[in-house]
């Protein structure tokens, strides 16, 4: 077995080296000409070797006159600049010819880029899964439970998450909706694909659905960023996807903790490596410090449960009778990391920074998916098992939640940066989710999950929209925008739908969630409901103000490009807008089915 897997790994590694190393294929340069003081300044762009054979050698001399030279030593080539003068007529003709070639080559490169990225995903997934299996083998006698998991499930699921996740989760979702019993079937043959230890239930299926449906959009929006950052960017994003699927699939605190902590690192690298500005590094460190200190608070809890009670499964924890002191200590330990992720007010400072410095797809992942891991963990691991701990700390949690909801909205109102405003709106919404989860009713909890789902699509759409604007105007300051409805009517309409979703207009997904949460809060304490309900008004204020300021009013002098959304951007934003609206109409399907799961959490234990 070991020998076989070693050989397999080596073969795959070798194949990876030869297949994906672009420097083995060689290089081709295409030159880009631009005018500068009556001279031509020549810049060089790298493209694939596949073009070299079709490159017309006899034209090279002509192009050399133009300032386009052929070099074999590309290191010299990249740094060189030539200033060459030439007759105007010849220049024009040659330039036209050159541009034709250039665009064709760009097209080919784009095509190849897509193919490569998919191939990259497949191969790296295989390697990752095998590696994980190997680690599992080593730990087999040490942590039997864990290595069983790593052995069988992780490898399978790692692979499955890149190839099968989409159909699998869709199938299980459909199955769940149809018969109330989740299982994963192969969607072409109808066989049972795998039976896992996981409970796919009303609690985690929405999150899984969110992950697998948003990630294609994330990949679409990352085409522009990934160009310059090679495939490391895509690999990290892919890693995040797989880890998120795991995070939402497991119901074992130990494993969840492991995935939760690993999840921070690709995100840390993505922000620190690919952010557009130089402040990105401090933002990344801030993100890391908050997340890591938070999750290290959960480590003693995990160790405590694992070695004193023998298991960290959520079902077993729910069945265990913890003493009151134990419960309050465990709750305190678990509250910090997940509150950092939510993020609750004193621990929220990393979020605006990270959002501002991250590139668009990373922002989408951060707001729409990463924040949800905190909410999911509360529902899964805290609510059922530590109900008396929650009662002990309920005053603190409610005060923190309410303060965060109110001040999150107020801060959003005074922001001058587009992304920061949406980030603070996320703080407000997610803390409403926190209040819903700890309201103590299954009703509030279902509402919280629904709000998370809706907020996932809405905030993803909003960040994608901000990415669209940033790509055109290279600024995120709100006062530089104005009157965009004249230049981008289609985008304006889509952004309008998302704005409606952001302040939870009826018939958008947010309305259902917020309504249920507020009802449960009012049932508990009227004034609490009132204080949390201020967000309804405040979110209306900032959302409409933002929309009005950007799309209407005086046409800004900074708006110099007049271009509506491209097809790719349209697809990304349109999906989010549509889902925001669709969730507003079909809420009852979801809530009816998942109430049963939440009743288990709240009343069976």
């Amino acid at each position, binding site marked *: 077995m070991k020998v076989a897997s070693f050989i397999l790994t080596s073969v795959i590694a070798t194949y990876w080296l030869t297949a994906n190393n672009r*420097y083995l294929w060689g290089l081709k340069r295409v030159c880009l000409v631009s005018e500068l003081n009556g001279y031509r300044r020549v810049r060089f762009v790298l493209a694939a070797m596949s073009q070299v054979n079709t490159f017309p050698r006899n034209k090279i001399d002509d192009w050399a006159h133009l300032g386009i030279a052929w070099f074999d030593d590309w290191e010299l080539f990249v740094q060189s600049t030539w200033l060459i003068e030439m007759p105007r007529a010849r220049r024009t003709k040659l330039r036209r010819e050159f541009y034709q070639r250039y665009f064709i080559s760009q097209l080919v490169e784009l095509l190849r880029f897509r193919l490569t990225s998919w191939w990259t995903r497949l191969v790296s997934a295989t390697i990752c899964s095998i590696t994980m299996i190997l*680690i599992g083998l080593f730990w*087999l006698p040490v942590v039997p439970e864990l290595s069983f998991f790593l052995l069988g499930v992780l490898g399978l699921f790692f692979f499955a998450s890149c190839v099968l996740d989409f159909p699998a989760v869709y199938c299980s979702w459909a199955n769940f909706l149809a018969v109330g019993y989740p299982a994963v079937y192969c969607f072409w043959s109808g066989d049972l694909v795998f039976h896992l230890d996981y409970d796919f239930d009303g609690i985690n299926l929405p999150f899984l659905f969110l992950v697998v449906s948003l990630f294609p959009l994330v990949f679409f929006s990352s085409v522009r960023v990934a160009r310059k950052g090679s495939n490391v960017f895509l690999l990290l994003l892919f890693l995040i996807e797989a880890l998120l699927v795991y995070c939402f699939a497991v119901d074992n605190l130990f494993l969840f903790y492991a995935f939760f902590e690993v999840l921070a690192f690709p995100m840390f690298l993505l922000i620190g490596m690919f952010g557009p500005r130089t402040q990105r590094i401090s933002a990344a460190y801030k993100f890391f410090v908050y997340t890591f200190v938070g999750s290290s608070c959960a480590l003693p809890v995990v160790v405590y449960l694992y070695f004193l009670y023998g298991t960290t499964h959520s079902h077993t924890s729910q069945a265990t009778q913890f003493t009151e002191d134990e419960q309050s200590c465990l709750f305190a330990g678990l509250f910090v990391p997940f509150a950092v992720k939510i993020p609750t007010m004193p621990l929220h400072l990393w979020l605006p920074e990270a959002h501002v410095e991250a590139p668009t797809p990373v922002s989408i992942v951060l707001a729409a998916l990463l924040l949800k891991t905190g909410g999911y963990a509360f529902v899964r691991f805290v609510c059922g098992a530590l109900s008396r701990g929650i009662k002990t700390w309920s005053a603190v949690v409610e005060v923190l939640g309410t303060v965060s909801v109110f001040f999150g909205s107020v801060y959003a109102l005074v922001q001058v940066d587009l992304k920061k405003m949406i980030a603070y709106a996320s703080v407000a919404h997610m803390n409403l989710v926190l209040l819903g989860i700890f309201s103590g009713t299954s009703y509030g909890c279902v509402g919280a999950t629904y709000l998370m789902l809706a907020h996932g699509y809405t905030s993803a759409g909003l960040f994608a929209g901000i990415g669209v604007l940033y790509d055109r105007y290279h600024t995120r300051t709100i006062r530089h925008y104005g009157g965009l409805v004249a230049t981008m009517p289609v985008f304006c309409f889509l952004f309008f739908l998302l704005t409606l979703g952001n302040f939870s207009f009826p018939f958008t997904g947010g309305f259902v969630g917020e309504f249920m949460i507020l009802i449960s809060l009012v049932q508990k304490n009227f004034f609490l409901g009132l204080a949390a309900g201020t967000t309804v008004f405040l979110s209306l204020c900032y959302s409409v103000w933002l929309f009005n300021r950007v799309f209407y009013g005086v046409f800004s002098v900074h708006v110099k490009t007049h271009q509506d959304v491209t097809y790719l951007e349209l697809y990304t934003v349109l999906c989010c807008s549509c889902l925001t609206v669709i969730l507003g109409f079909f809420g009852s399907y979801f809530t009816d089915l998942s109430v049963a799961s939440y009743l288990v959490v709240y009343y069976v234990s």
Partner: protein
Amino acid sequence: MVFEIILFIFIFLFVTVNFFYSFNITWLWYWFLLLVGTLFLMINTAGTYWVIYWPCSSASSFFRRYYPHSQSLATSDYLDNLWFNGGVLKNDLVLIVLMSLFFCYGCATLARAWNTTYEYVLLLLISSGACVLSFSTDHGVVLYLLLEIQALTLYTLVGYHRFSESSTGAALKYLLTGSFASGFTLLGFLSFYQLEGTFQLHELSQTSFYWGSTWLVGSLLFKLGVYPFCFWVPQVYRSLDFATLGFFLTAAKVNIWFLLAKTLACVLPNFYWVLLIGSLMSLLIGSVGGLFQRSISSLLSYSSILNSGYLVLILIFSKHHDYADNLFLFSLYLVNYSLVTLLLVYSAALLSESSTQKFRFVLASGTSFSFLLYYAALNLAGLPAYPGFFAKILYLRVFLGVSVVLMGIVVLFSVLAAFYYVRMSVTPFFSNPRRNGYFASRVRPVSPFLSFVVYFVINSFFLMLLNLWW
């Protein structure tokens, strides 16, 4: 069994080294040269061990012929009858320790041997030979002599760059302090002789005596760099080059750890409070001190103080649970720490602009070495999915058995330490490659993630291999 071990070590070294050297030099010819050269060096290594070790072993007719009484006096065949474990190799620390020793030695030699003279390699060989022999001796004075030989070569290695002021200064410091420690070791053995009338180590390991063992434990703590005696560590390590640093951090310490964990296991409970305070202070110094360092040598020296603290903590709480389990944990942690530190030093040496102490990394050598460094540093930080994380979970379990507060303290220090590990791991990713100039443009990028994955696989295999014999 022995042949299997050697075979696997060969395979491991072969794969590792060829893998590394294939990055810098992409041409087939160099591949071939390196392949042959590596094989040559490995055969050389094994051969030298054979030459040093075999005459001293009981199987050697040469040794028996000329020194018929030496068997009871100085050496015994460590593969057949060890003085502590009746020759059951499977449950022994020695194997693990030896394998890591071989590994470290081989890597340090290879990292260094391409551009140096033969004296360096010779010194490493003498040091490693003394180290190996110290596992198999049963006599206090011989052990002292072996430790002294080892220490003398280490002094020389520190001062190897004899025209460098920092190097000679460090060597002088190390010599002055280290010779005190050596003297105390001898004093310890003598006082045991005074007490029991024997120098036999298997009797020493079963006796709990206080007065003389103070000297022994103290001198070993000095060599390991645990709290009261840790102040020489950053001073000396700061001036080392990368190959020597890797050797000092890992291979030079394994036999000392072995002595503390096995030979002196009975006397350790006498020093409970001293060791507890000492190791907690080591944790404090190692984690807080490392936050302010800018060079990788200093960082790793503080890291070694920190990890010594963890290891001593595990040792002093061995009585609370099953001793064998804790010893397993101890060796697991030690091996993981050694291998990963060596990997870290190795990748840092290849990433840095010159093989000196500056903490300047280059992204453009491909993301591969950056990923190696990333893996190694995060493994040391004990982050999930790496072997270090599981070791951390297991030693937290030991501390949980003692007190929850202790566990909290240990987690706190590990978080502090994780900051500098993470800083180290992401620096090559976040730094600007253009500023680093020439070197950056010369090294060809390789396929990202590959080296990370392959090293991961190799490392896992290596650890699995240990598991096989466990």
